[in-house]
């Protein structure tokens, strides 16, 4: 049941107006106006989203608000519309995108305060919000893809924002191209679905129609689900396409917080949840999603524990956390995956903004070896980041505890005991690397360069207020999804249930059925998290020399982690170089120049010789050409007249 609600258009309109204003008038109107308009656009969108959400809460469960703009693509019997849908799932997403987005826009006023290109920056940020909102509000898969690639564009533009640095420009390009690999899969997934639907007379791609005719999708569910998931591994930085995200950290830090942590990179999780009816049809596709998620989670967590760059640690942490979300949706706990998506948006954006606050205070320093002891000079940043650290580590009652616990419990219940084990170990690693980050940055002796030490300062209110609000969210944001039986229980899950019902996977015969109770599972995860924190404490606070000694003794392992398992190098050797060789040597110089042109130039057409001839005729006097041409035309016409007469 869809209720027509034109005000949905406002959620999209405000950011769009922001884009237009910033592009055309931003530089002219000056920094203060832009600093006001750009966040205001997102705050207004947030307000509109709240209004829509309130309306939705007043309606029966499973209802949705809809807003149709115009028929978009019509060819043959196919018709895809520009139409939006605001239901429990997209509603939560919209609130996260506009809510967290608004705070980050506000923070950017301070962070980008000295940048000359502020208008361009905010134009891109507003454009990102617009594209992301299209992604989550689209009522059909094809329109969703518009947002999907649109956010990729903004990601590219913002990673390469400081484009005069060649490395940054390269990283932006890398992000876009790696995403394109995934998107090719996404497009093929769309095609698979379209043809399956068309063969039974469904000529559209709206989520509701697809869900209604899910039985026609059954034969292609595994193929389509896997292809679409390839797209998700690009956008959501999962194995094998995660390689772009760590390099994306060269963009301005608010960008890392908004796009590369809180919203865009979680689009893959949203897509799987949105298409839960499709994935439910194929246990193979689900297993792929869950396995890739779990493996990615632990893989990138191991890289995170040795990285010296504060933003890179957070980047690998993001990859790892999205792995959790994928694990969640992959074992059929769609609501839990989205729940973790939301809490992650709180604590990871806070972590990035906190890191940004530190970087801002240290004049761009990102190496944690040159930080330390900042808790006294930057108390607000320290406390808020500590809250986020506790949340991501899964310490109750902070938000991350509930969402991560829900995912791990569902994994265990689904019979994927190994994946659960991987998830639990990752929880311990997470706590370790996160507190390593906090201790290296805020505790111990100061290792800050002498030149910068003098003017280290706490950030201005425009930056700290968002930190505090987000810290509050990290504290209480998880309480809407308590374990069943405690107080109001899993209100969040119940709210989402009509849209993405939890899939009760019956463990296959090959999978062991675990016998541990949920409370024991929680205790194990909690215990590992606390051990992780304790280990970080002993490494980086008690005996600061220990990590370096360890690194020396385990040098090959340490170097492998530091170099990120050499994945970039492997991709370069196996993909990029052969491709360029094929392009330049074989096809261009070989086929095109030598073979085809060689044949053309040589087949006695005497091209060069004729060229000589032309030079002699080509006197440059146009009247001559015109005359010659006219004569030719007259001759032909005369010939025809002659023919006609003879007839």
């Amino acid at each position, binding site marked *: 049941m869809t209720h027509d609600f034109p005000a949905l258009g406002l959620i999209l309109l405000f950011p769009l107006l922001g884009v237009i204003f910033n592009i055309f008038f931003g530089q002219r109107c000056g920094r203060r106006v832009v600093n006001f308009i750009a966040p205001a656009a997102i705050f207004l969108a947030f307000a509109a989203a709240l209004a829509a959400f309130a309306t939705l809460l007043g309606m029966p469960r499973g209802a949705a608000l809809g807003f149709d703009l115009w028929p978009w693509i*019509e060819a043959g019997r196919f018709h895809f519309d520009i139409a939006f849908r605001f239901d429990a799932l997209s509603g939560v997403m919209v609130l996260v995108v506009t809510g967290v987005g608004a705070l980050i826009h506000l923070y950017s006023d301070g962070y980008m305060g000295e940048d000359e290109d502020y208008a361009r920056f905010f134009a891109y940020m507003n454009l990102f919000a617009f594209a992301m909102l299209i992604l989550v509000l689209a009522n059909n898969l094809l329109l969703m893809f518009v947002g999907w690639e649109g956010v990729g564009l903004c990601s590219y533009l913002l990673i390469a924002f400081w484009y005069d640095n060649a490395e940054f420009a390269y990283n932006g390009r890398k992000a876009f191209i790696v995403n394109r690999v995934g998107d*090719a899969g996404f497009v093929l997934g769309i095609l*698979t679905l379209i043809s399956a639907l068309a063969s039974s007379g469904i000529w559209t791609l709206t989520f509701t129609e697809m869900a209604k005719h899910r039985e026609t999708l059954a034969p292609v569910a595994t193929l389509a689900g896997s292809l679409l998931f390839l797209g998700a591994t690009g956008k959501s930085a999962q194995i094998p396409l995660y390689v772009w995200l760590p390099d994306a950290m060269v963009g301005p830090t608010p960008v890392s917080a908004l796009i590369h942590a809180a919203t865009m990179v979680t689009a893959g999780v949203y897509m799987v949840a949105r298409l839960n009816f499709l994935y439910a049809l194929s246990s193979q596709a689900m297993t792929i999603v869950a396995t890739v998620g779990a493996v990615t989670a632990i893989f990138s967590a191991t890289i995170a524990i040795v990285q010296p760059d504060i933003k890179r640690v957070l980047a690998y942490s993001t990859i790892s956390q999205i792995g959790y979300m994928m694990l969640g949706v992959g074992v059929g706990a769609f609501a839990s995956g989205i729940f973790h998506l939301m809490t992650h948006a709180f604590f990871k954006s806070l972590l990035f903004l906190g890191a940004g606050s530190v970087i801002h205070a240290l004049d761009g320093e990102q190496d944690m070896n040159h930080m330390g002891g900042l808790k006294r000079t930057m108390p607000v940043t320290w406390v808020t980041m500590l809250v986020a650290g506790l949340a991501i580590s899964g310490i109750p009652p902070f938000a991350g505890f509930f969402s991560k616990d829900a995912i791990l419990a569902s994994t265990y219940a689904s019979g994927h005991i190994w994946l659960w084990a991987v998830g639990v170990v990752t929880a311990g690693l997470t706590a370790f690397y996160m507190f390593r980050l906090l201790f290296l940055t805020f505790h111990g002796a100061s290792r800050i360069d002498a030149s910068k030490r003098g003017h280290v300062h706490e950030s201005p209110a425009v930056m700290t207020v968002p930190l505090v609000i987000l810290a509050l969210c990290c504290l209480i944001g998880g309480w809407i999804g308590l374990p069943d039986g405690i107080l109001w229980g899993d209100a969040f899950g119940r709210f989402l249930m009509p849209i993405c019902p939890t899939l009760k996977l019956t463990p296959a015969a090959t999978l062991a059925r675990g016998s541990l109770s949920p409370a024991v599972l929680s205790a194990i995860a909690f215990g590992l998290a606390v051990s992780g924190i304790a280990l970080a404490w002993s490494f980086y606070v008690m005996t600061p020399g220990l990590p370096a000694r360890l690194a020396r003794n385990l040098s090959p392992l340490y170097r492998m982690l530091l170099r990120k398992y050499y994945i970039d190098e492997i991709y370069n050797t196996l993909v990029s170089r052969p491709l360029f060789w094929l392009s330049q040597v074989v096809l261009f110089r070989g086929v095109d120049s030598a073979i085809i042109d060689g044949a053309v130039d040589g087949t006695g057409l005497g091209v060069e010789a004729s060229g000589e001839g032309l030079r002699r005729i080509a006197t440059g006097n146009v009247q001559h050409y015109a005359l010659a041409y006219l004569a030719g035309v007259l001759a032909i016409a005369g010939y025809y007249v002659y023919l006609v007469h003879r007839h």
Partner: protein
Amino acid sequence: MNHPLTLITFIPLIGMALILVCPPAFKAGYKWIAAATTLPQLIIAGWLVHNFSTNTAGIQFVERYPWIRAYHIFYFMGVDGISISMVLLTAIICFISVFASFSIEHGEKGYYALLMLLDTGMMGVFVALDFFLFYIFWEVMLLPMYFLIGIWGGPRREYAAIKFFLYTLLGSVLILLVMLGLYYYGVTPTFDMTQLAAQSSSYSMTFQRICWVALFIGFAIKIPAFPFHTWLPDAHVEAPTAISVILAGVLLKMGTYGILRVNYAILPAASHELAWFFLGVIGTVNIVYGAMVAMAQTDYKKLVAYSSISHMGYVMLGMASFTAAGINGAVLQMFNHGTITAMLFILVGVIYDRAHHREINGFGGLAQQMPLYTGITGLAFFAALGLPGLSAFISEVLVLIGAWQRHPVMTVFGAGTAILTAAYLLWCFQRIYLGRLDEKYASLPDLSLREGFTLVPLAVIVIVLGWYPHAILGLLQTSLNHLNRVVLAATPAQAVALH
């Protein structure tokens, strides 16, 4: 308006006459005469689109008069959904290319006169419905192009012009032979394309196949399809900016238009039988090969030229699908490619006029010095790489939807090439516009008003068609779906009723 098609076709000839009689003292006036000629053409095109009925697949605005009775040759003009979109495209591109020509500094009289003649030839090809008349216009278009490249081109202009001429001449000869063959072997000798289509089943299948392949080669040279494409990069590199714009914007479309108008409409049975290879396989090769070779280019203009080859491959692939989605996508892609590539060539011209070279590796950091120029280039690049929200995405995705039903393997290549396209375009973008600005370009001016005037309308079209493709699709649909049904029905045994 009584004879809109005659008018829109021959207005440029009036302009040409005016330019030729205009005394050299008023040298500065040539370009304005040209502009004043193409503007009414554009207005008539708009009028045609406005008054065009999208409910019928029939021919509209018909003008039909006997011309050479003895040979049943008629002065027969008319448009259907396919040609009306091309008429509109031609009018837009010609108008813009006049303004893109303002940097021509020698032999202006000849240049603008030939440009006008070229305009008439192109417009005529799209409105002619008598094969003989069609052929005349086809030839009329060839010579001005040859001279425009050969005289106003770059250093290797003669080589490029001759190469263009010989290739195209070969194509013309093949088309001429088929035209005469169809005339002499028909049950009633005629050049009337509608009549030829009506009597197509009377030709023997072998004869149809031979004609089809000969016509295909004739048209494939224009597209250009692999392996007949090597004239294109040379022609583009040497041609002046506006001529490249016309070449890529309009001329290439004549190849695929010809296949639809002649091969599909007149020889549907052979089309049904042969398209999978000649359009499907070769189209796929075009897509992948064009993109791969584009990646190897160091000359900005050559890169755009090869990208054209790749993008025209989608047109072929869509046509090979014989599905409503594929074939509508194909013609929409013709329109979109026309506008986007026109932008790209204008953009190449902008930097060439300033820096006097086109070495991709010789630039860097232009974004800092020319932000407006860089912004529009970014838009054009992302349009070219099929970013959703911009026009080419719609046509490419329709092509893929259509092709997937029949040729899934080719479609995988088509979809996969989107990665390569992004790779070579963004790599090029990075090398020219991003990075550190070279000192020697620190004084380049940003876009001039005139350059902006040529680019902005195209940019608007590219954005609008990304969100409202119906503006063009609506024109095409009825005619194309009808044509598609004709082709599908032509071999009842094979005609699987695919949407």
